[in-house]
């Protein structure tokens, strides 16, 4: 292989190499600029990074329907102690939000026109509509009960009975069928505004006027997110400015926008606080070690080249760069910076030689590290997981960038002399000497204790290690956002959850019958509190069979209409007209086509999935809200194959689990690959020692995570892969070194800078980043402590 060290070259060769490096960087830069110009973008939607879940065609259509209904919607409640105030404020907010059609569309509250449309649609079909209770009463010949109910309504001056309605529906059956369509309503429409009334503990009433809107851009797109937040803030400020003095208005907000915005704010805050801390730390460290800013400058140049290659390679292959790839991928700075530190520590060791000499010294270990890590990352890139492919490509390309900078550019650009400074090297030597004493053969008792300790901690930790793949735990929004959403949910009778039921059948009527068949199950689940509510099309669009039954049952009323009118004291002249209305309605039925094309049914059309060229079956979505126990729900529905609970959150969590375990296996595979490569250079036995450092670090890190009770996620696993890369680096440099102290110093510098840059992420409030940082913190800490032993083993066993 190529691991043999290039000869120190003459000036001409050095310049030529530097030119090649510059040309490569220039090309990469132009390629990157071209791609960004072509519309390559930074992707910040967390879901885009996850593997594509291949759902069956109808399920996929259903998921897209539900997502397009739920996505990018915002819900605002304006709460005041006076109803008029709440309504006025909501009307003003509606006007304000409608001023810019590029920010929000579909801005609405309660809509009277659609109410009218619903009523106009259903009323002509009243002879084919009955509630379950009405059906039972008529079947059991208990018409007297229906008459008594109607009579009670007639006596109620504040009820809905009027001459117009009675002359078309003498037993007032129709109002009850409407009521059955909306069993519990916490909201009403007043002056075109949805209003919900609540009472506090003191019995005071609060009125919440609700406004809904759909964001034009995605809530995860930083630009449209900012626009939407700004528009809302301005509009609410206008509403507040119009309030009479002394009137209090409370604003509740809900929607993905507010979660996304809180996450952005949090990230910005952390980038500035954690980023500043690590920057200051690294500068201080370099200054302390070298008394020169030159190494920092060269290290920054290396990292910049590395990032440039990484970004350009990722954009070329994927057309976009995920924000999380950027966050995780930048950890490769930890590896890239190693090259600079090893180079500079070598120069400090041999102050009189040129940069070319130092590069030659570092070359074998750097090359071996590059090959091993790139190979390991390629293995990760084989997984069908867009996010991990990106991380792998990003890291591999970034390392190549850093490597060619070291080999091609350093001899030219990093040739200036360092001030004489023996202190750090002396300290490094003292540390190595201590390690040497500890690992001497004679010192077996300490050695045993140490190994036993590590083994014990690892075993204990691993036994307590648990996994946590629920993606909901990765998104922890601030309490304020969560509590506002919970309050709004309460106002809107539970809202709608991301899980839904998909029902399928070979044709439309069979589907409606299937939907009717699950009604009792859903009712029972609602009664038991397993779900809060369900929106089933069967309640709004009865099957032809049910309509025919209802029509036949109502015949009991209209065939005896004279008798009934007389009993209720109604005018006998109504009879002939009523009989005629009933007969004329015989052929009148609600068909799915007519329903979904009517203004009334349009509201429900997203729930209906007709058969198409791609899909032979008809499908219907049953939306669910307030799910309290998903397992019970799953069990209750498991009886038929045509009814399926679609739970994308669970599917994604499941995939996360799969890739977490896959990543850990890949880590094992990477270790084996590394061992194989090392064996070619060091022989099997020594290679085992070199590989033992990253392997033990990984195990110990897992053990410590277990002890800390941090449930293992994909993000822990991803960080372990980086720990592996850095661990390979450290132990290789020690293995290659003849004089250990320069390596010791470089490893110390590298570990400190990496911990400063990424260990600090452990203090992040964003769970995914916190997990990542914590794992790096523990992993690099372990690697740093373990790797010097390699130096000793190699020396004693070579």
């Amino acid at each position, binding site marked *: 292989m190529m691991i043999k060290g290039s000869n120190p070259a003459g000036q001409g060769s050095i310049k030529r190499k530097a030119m090649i490096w510059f040309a490569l960087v220039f090309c990469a830069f132009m390629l990157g600029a071209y791609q960004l110009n072509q519309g390559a973008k930074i992707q910040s939607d967390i879901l885009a990074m996850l593997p594509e879940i291949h759902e069956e065609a109808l399920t996929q259509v259903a998921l897209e329907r539900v997502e397009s209904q739920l996505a990018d919607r915002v819900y605002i409640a304006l709460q005041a102690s006076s109803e008029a105030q709440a309504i006025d404020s909501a009307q003003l907010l509606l006007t304000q939000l409608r001023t810019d059609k590029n920010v929000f569309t579909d801005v609405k509250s*309660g809509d009277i026109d659609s109410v009218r449309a619903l009523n106009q649609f259903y009323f002509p079909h009243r002879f084919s509509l009955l509630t379950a209770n009405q059906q039972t009463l008529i079947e059991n010949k208990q018409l007297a009960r229906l008459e008594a109910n109607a009579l009670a309504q007639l006596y109620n001056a*504040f009820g809905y009975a009027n*001459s117009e309605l009675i002359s078309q529906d003498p037993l007032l059956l129709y109002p009850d069928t409407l009521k059955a369509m909306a069993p519990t*309503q916490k909201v009403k429409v007043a002056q075109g505004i949805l209003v919900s009334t609540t009472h506090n503990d003191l019995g005071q009433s609060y009125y919440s006027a609700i406004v809904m809107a759909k964001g034009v851009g995605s809530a995860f797109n930083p630009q449209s997110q900012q626009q939407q937040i700004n528009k809302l803030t301005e509009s609410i400020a206008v509403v507040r400015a119009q309030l009479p003095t002394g009137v209090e208005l409370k604003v509740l907000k809900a929607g993905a926008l507010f979660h996304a915005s809180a996450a952005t704010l949090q990230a910005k805050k952390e980038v500035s606080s954690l980023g500043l801390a690590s920057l200051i730390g690294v500068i201080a460290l370099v200054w302390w070690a070298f008394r020169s800013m030159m190494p920092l400058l060269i290290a920054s140049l290396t990292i910049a080249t590395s990032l440039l290659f990484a970004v350009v390679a990722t954009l070329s292959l994927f057309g976009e760069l995920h924000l999380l790839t950027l966050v995780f991928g930048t950890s490769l700075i930890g590896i890239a910076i190693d090259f600079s530190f090893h180079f500079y520590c070598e120069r400090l060791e041999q102050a009189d030689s040129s940069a070319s000499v130092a590069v030659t010294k570092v070359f074998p270990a750097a090359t071996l590290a590059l090959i091993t890590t790139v190979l390991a990352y390629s293995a990760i890139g084989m997984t069908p997981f867009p996010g991990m492919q990106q991380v792998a490509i990003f890291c591999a390309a970034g390392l190549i960038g850093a490597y060619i900078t070291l080999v091609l550019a350093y001899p030219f650009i990093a040739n200036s002399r360092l001030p004489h400074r023996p202190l750090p090297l002396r300290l490094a030597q003292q540390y190595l000497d201590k390690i040497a004493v500890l690992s001497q053969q004679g010192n077996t008792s300490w050695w045993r204790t140490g190994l036993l300790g590590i083994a014990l901690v690892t075993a204990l930790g691993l036994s307590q290690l648990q996994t946590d793949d629920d993606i909901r735990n990765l998104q922890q929004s601030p309490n304020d956002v969560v509590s506002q959403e919970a309050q709004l949910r309460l106002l809107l009778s539970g809202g709608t959850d991301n899980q839904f039921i998909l029902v399928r059948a070979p044709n439309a009527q069979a589907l409606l019958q299937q939907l009717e068949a699950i009604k009792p199950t859903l009712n029972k689940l609602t009664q038991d509190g397993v779900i809060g509510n369900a929106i089933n099309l069967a309640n709004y669009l009865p099957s032809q069979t049910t309509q025919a039954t209802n029509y036949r049952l109502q015949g009991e009323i209209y065939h005896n209409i004279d008798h009934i009118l007389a009993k209720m004291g109604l005018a006998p002249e109504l009879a002939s007209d009523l009989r005629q209305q009933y007969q004329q309605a015989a052929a009148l039925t609600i068909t799915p086509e007519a329903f979904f094309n009517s203004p009334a049914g349009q509201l429900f059309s997203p729930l209906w999935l007709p058969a198409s060229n791609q899909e032979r079956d008809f499908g219907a979505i049953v939306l669910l809200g307030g799910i309290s126990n998903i397992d019970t729900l799953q069990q209750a529905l498991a009886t038929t194959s045509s009814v399926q609970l679609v739970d994308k959150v669970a599917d994604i969590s499941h995939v996360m689990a799969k890739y977490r375990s896959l990543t850990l296996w890949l880590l094992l595979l990477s270790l084996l690959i590394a061992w194989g490569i090392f064996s070619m250079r060091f022989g099997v036995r020594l290679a085992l020692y070199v590989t033992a450092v990253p392997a033990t670090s990984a195990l110990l890190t897992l053990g410590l995570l277990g002890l800390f009770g941090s449930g293992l996620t994909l993000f822990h696993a991803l960080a372990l892969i980086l720990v592996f890369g850095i661990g390979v680096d450290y132990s290789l440099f020690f293995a290659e070194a003849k004089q250990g102290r320069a390596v010791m110093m470089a490893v110390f510098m590298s570990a400190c800078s990496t911990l400063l840059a990424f260990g600090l992420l452990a203090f992040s409030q964003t769970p995914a980043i916190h997990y990542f940082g914590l794992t790096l913190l523990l992993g690099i800490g372990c690697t740093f402590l373990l790797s010097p032993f390699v130096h000793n083993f190699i020396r004693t066993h070579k």
Partner: protein
Amino acid sequence: MASLLPRTCLIGVLLFSLSLFSHANQSPSYDALFSQNADNAQLQTLAQRLNSGETAQGSFTQYRYLKVLKKPLVSHGQFLFQNQQGLAWLQTRPFASGLVLTQGALIQIDSDGNRQVSQAQNNQQANALAQMMPTLMNGLLQGEIAPLTSQFSLFLLQEGQQWQLGLVPLDPLIKQAMPKLVLQGEQQLQQLILLGHNGDRSEIHFEQITNQPLTEQQLNYFSSVTPKPAQ
């Protein structure tokens, strides 16, 4: 992840639109009243005259004139009002039934004395009409006219001791169900007239209104837990 979708919100509103088929056809006798916008000073005076304290109770006779009825429906009963509790509307003849409206609940009592309590919160749209009664009562028995102005356009006619207050709901849905209301009286409230479409009309005559405090038994009607109080 979480999203809300008040999809069925609008369905509840349907109950209101039941009267949408009707064409306006008003009883002409109140045209004079509904052309007289009430001004604040007049309302203030009326409010002072009517203010009769925290409690009111009395009996009523209700006449329902509907075009489809062979003869008007006449019913009798008692009403109880307490400003902290709400309103109980208890029909005794021709059959017993009741409607109790409190801050948070609506209690319906059927002819067998069964009480059905529904949280007002859970069916706000359907109960909105019923909730108009306590608003009216509070306004008239307590002389609190201001809350009425936020829900109705007000009209006033006065002739000596006689006064007529006309109300037109502001909310279009309520207005469709109940286009116009007329209250009339002298020292006390005497009549409430509800004018519907197609000449449908309800008249409620109040008698023997007193400000006697409610008895323990009467207060029982307002408790949503007590089963079957005495008729």
